[in-house]
């Protein structure tokens, strides 16, 4: 029995369905887990993986969908302003505008993640999750060189359109992606003096990994990629024929007048490519430190399918490996998964976007601002003394609207430009989320089963943790549910006036547990 052979259908319990939704999406409501489980393993995996791509444009604002004012137009316009102070103000205004737009784009994406659902007609969870995967794998950020929202929206759309397509298709789109070409300096790469940045990362981080190419290969690939550039007037891809080096190159032992597409073909023909990507997929979807046997097995399926991610995920999400002990509840939730998953559990809409974005920034995952071209490291790197307490304080924010100043957006990393002047909303208590636990219980029809404190604890554990809780966790929570605030024993009761308040306190503690940080 191989690691990737399918599990028996009977093992696709609601807990298993929840596991699938946390990994292939951003968590779920318990009802969604039950519904998906009822579909059966095969139909459930098909529904998740074989989704119809959304196209992903609407309803992002039109301002984001059109290219920004070209730099030279801006400069012309500024030059015409005589008063230096007004000119600088105008310049800052154009930066501030982009800061606002990127905030809008972040909120738009979070909204899509939150609205994603395996239910028919829902935004496909896997499209959003894979787009996030590619955003971290082929990482480009607003900071430093791009500084415009439009190219990052375009890139996001490309990742989404090609999310489950083949690796060569994805790489060929990548070498034409304006944001990436600017981010890694290829836009200005000229024959005779090629810039090696993109060629290096293409091999090191995007396709093969260190040790599977030489410095000479980097130089030769850089030559092949000269001329892959960007028209800065409208941020479109532009192949500059005069800048391209058409002469013979020798890349990974093969000689010819290679261009970018040929580089992609040569890279994808390397055995290391499938292994490298298998490790990435496993780390993201299955377990943080995959063993060599897992990598070999996944790489084989991926390679044999012609690098078709859709068929790989079809296999992976049905596999013994995916539902085995090393995979279940072993991955530290990324901040985005943590936040969106919690909101799903609460059946809540997106809270005040600025506060949510600020919290995500402090937790270490700001969309469109990956720390560097290597993306977010993930795993245990999400956790330090600060980020863990921030996660726990974030729970307090969701439950009680208490939002520390720390959640106010930090100045953007536009180190050498004017700071963002974004207005932050008030951070008083109850500013953001208004969660009504009792209403949620009644809507789900579970009210009549809430007889004891234990029933209530089990209900919330199921809604939020969505797995068999560790015994000490459940015991501790039951103790809380049986103790009233006046020092006596008064079990929680859904008919009591303070039920909602006590329920929020209970969920606050569920979310303030190490267990809740894992999925």
């Amino acid at each position: 029995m191989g690691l990737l052979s399918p599990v028996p259908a009977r093992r696709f319990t609601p807990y298993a369905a929840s596991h699938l939704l946390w990994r292939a999406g951003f968590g779920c409501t318990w009802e969604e887990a039950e519904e998906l489980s009822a579909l059966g393993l095969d139909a459930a995996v098909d529904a998740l993986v074989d989704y119809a791509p959304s196209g992903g444009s609407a309803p992002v604002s039109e301002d984001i969908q059109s290219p920004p004012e070209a730099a030279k137009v801006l400069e012309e316009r500024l030059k015409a302003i005589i008063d230096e102070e007004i000119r600088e103000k105008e310049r800052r205004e154009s930066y501030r505008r982009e800061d606002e737009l990127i905030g809008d784009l972040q909120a738009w994406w979070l909204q899509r993640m939150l609205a994603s659902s395996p239910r028919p007609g829902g935004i496909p969870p896997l499209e959003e999750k894979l787009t996030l995967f590619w955003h971290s794998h082929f990482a480009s950020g607003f900071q430093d060189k791009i500084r415009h929202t439009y190219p990052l929206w375009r890139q996001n759309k490309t990742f989404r359109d090609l999310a489950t397509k083949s690796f060569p298709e994805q790489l060929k789109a990548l070498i034409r992606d304006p944001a990436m070409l600017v981010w890694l300096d290829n836009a200005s790469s000229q024959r005779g003096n090629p810039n090696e940045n993109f060629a290096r990362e293409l091999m090191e981080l995007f396709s093969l990994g260190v040790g599977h190419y030489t410095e000479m290969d980097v130089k030769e690939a850089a030559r092949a990629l000269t001329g892959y550039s960007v028209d800065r007037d409208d941020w479109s891809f532009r192949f500059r024929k005069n800048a391209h080096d058409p002469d013979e190159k020798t890349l990974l032992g093969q000689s010819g007048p290679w261009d970018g597409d040929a580089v992609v073909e040569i890279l994808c023909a390397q055995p290391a490519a499938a292994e490298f990507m298998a490790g990435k997929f496993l780390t993201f979807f299955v377990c943080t430190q995959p063993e060599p046997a897992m990598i070999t097995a996944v790489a084989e399926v991926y390679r044999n399918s012609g690098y078709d991610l859709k068929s790989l995920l079809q296999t992976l999400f049905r596999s013994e490996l995916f539902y085995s002990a090393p995979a279940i509840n072993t991955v530290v939730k990324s901040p985005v998964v943590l936040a969106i998953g919690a909101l799903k559990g609460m059946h809540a809409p997106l809270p005040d976007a600025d506060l949510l974005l600020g919290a995500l920034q402090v937790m270490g995952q700001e969309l469109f601002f990956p720390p560097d071209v290597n993306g977010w490291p993930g795993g245990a790197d999400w956790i330090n003394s600060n980020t863990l307490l921030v996660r726990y304080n974030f729970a307090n924010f969701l439950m009680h609207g208490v939002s520390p100043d720390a959640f106010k957006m930090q100045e953007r990393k536009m180190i050498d430009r004017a700071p963002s002047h974004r207005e932050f909303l008030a951070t008083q208590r109850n500013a953001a989320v208004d969660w009504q636990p009792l209403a949620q219980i009644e809507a789900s029809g579970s009210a009549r089963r809430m007889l004891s404190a234990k029933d209530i604890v089990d209900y919330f554990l199921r809604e939020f943790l969505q797995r068999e809780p560790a015994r000490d966790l459940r015991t501790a929570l039951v103790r809380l549910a049986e103790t009233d605030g006046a020092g006596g024993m008064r079990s929680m009761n859904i008919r009591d006036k303070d039920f909602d308040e006590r329920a929020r306190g209970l969920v606050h503690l569920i979310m303030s547990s190490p267990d809740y940080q894992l999925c």
Partner: protein
Amino acid sequence: MYLHTRREFLSTGLKGVGLLATSAFVPTFITRTAAATGAARDSSILVVVQLSGGNDGLNTVVPFANDLYAKARPTLHLTGKETLKLDDSLGLHPSLIEFKNEYDAGRMAIVQNVGYPNPSRSHFRSMEIWQSGRDENDPSQREGWLGRYFDAQCEGADPTRRPGEIGMSFGKVMPQAFRNRSNVGLAISDPQTFQWNPSGETSTLASVQETIFEKLNQPNGGSGRMSPANAGGITGNEPDTINFLRHTAMNAVLAGDTIRGLLKKQKNRGSYPDGALAAQLQMVAKLIAGDFPSRVYYLAQGGYDTHSQQRDNHTRLLGDFSQSVGAFLADLRKQTISEKVTVLAFSEFGRRVAENGSQGTDHGAAAPLFLFGDNVKGGLHGPPPDLADLDDGDVKHQIDFRQVYASLLDNWLKTSSAKILGREFPGIPVV
């Protein structure tokens, strides 16, 4: 003996904890603190101030007598008269008044032309190089130079008897310099939010919640240390992951309590200017005065990326830097604890020699760095920048920044620098 929770810890205080140091069930912070308190009085402390964005070294330590300097900077150059002269050819930027006093008293070392081979002009990449302290392509580059120092302190030690929480950084993210395998080091953005807050409406309910929170985050055996094989990534071994999280949580909560306690109890002497850097240094002074077990404090002052309209901005930034650090050093002296502390201030790169068209300067290469303290060998180290021999318009480095690290590690933190930096670097006599 059962003494697990924060409340019990706080009511017992540090003294009673020595007894517990052998129990694997006690949060490491408690035992580390217990182990460290005895030594804290005489241990050396390093305070790192990172000047983010690329400080213009040439307008900080100004080679005013060099004609090439004024020529390259028609609008930005400072004249000898304007500077606070160090000698006939060099002067400090006029807003570095406090630093000039430190320099004159022999407590400020200026190391000139510090950099590294093949300099990167990317903020990110250059900062990464400075913070990791390792050569390009070194697999240990993921860890930070201070993080590896923390690891070296923890190595081989009984996990329950490891040294105290040995590094503390201010800011929302842990600096890469701190990245380590032992899961030590604190990142604090605001001591007031660096705690878990119960939500109970009544104090009794709040206290029940707090007890339960502590129970949920109680390390239940294990070291909380990621084994080398899975540091930076977790295997499918859930108990390890859970323990890692529990240790991190409990250490953070306990450290937060201790820190808030010390900040309340300790006092600063003298006055500090306004601003974030000064506010953080005030906290550092209190923590040092209160024998908090951290050996390294890490702070950052941003804004040095002066591509345009540099003059006023740079004056403001350096003024803030000098006044804040000056007040900090004066505070330590008044409290007679200045002997314990050395301050290192660096930036990821200097700026180009020639100014650009926007009365600013673009990303450059080598620049001076600064050390302060009673124990530094004050004065100028290394020759002034050679503006006639530039590398693509940038000052060439003559001293590798790791030579400075090596001296600090060997002579100040008393650890083997070769182990931390991956190879031997000839130290320079700064401490």
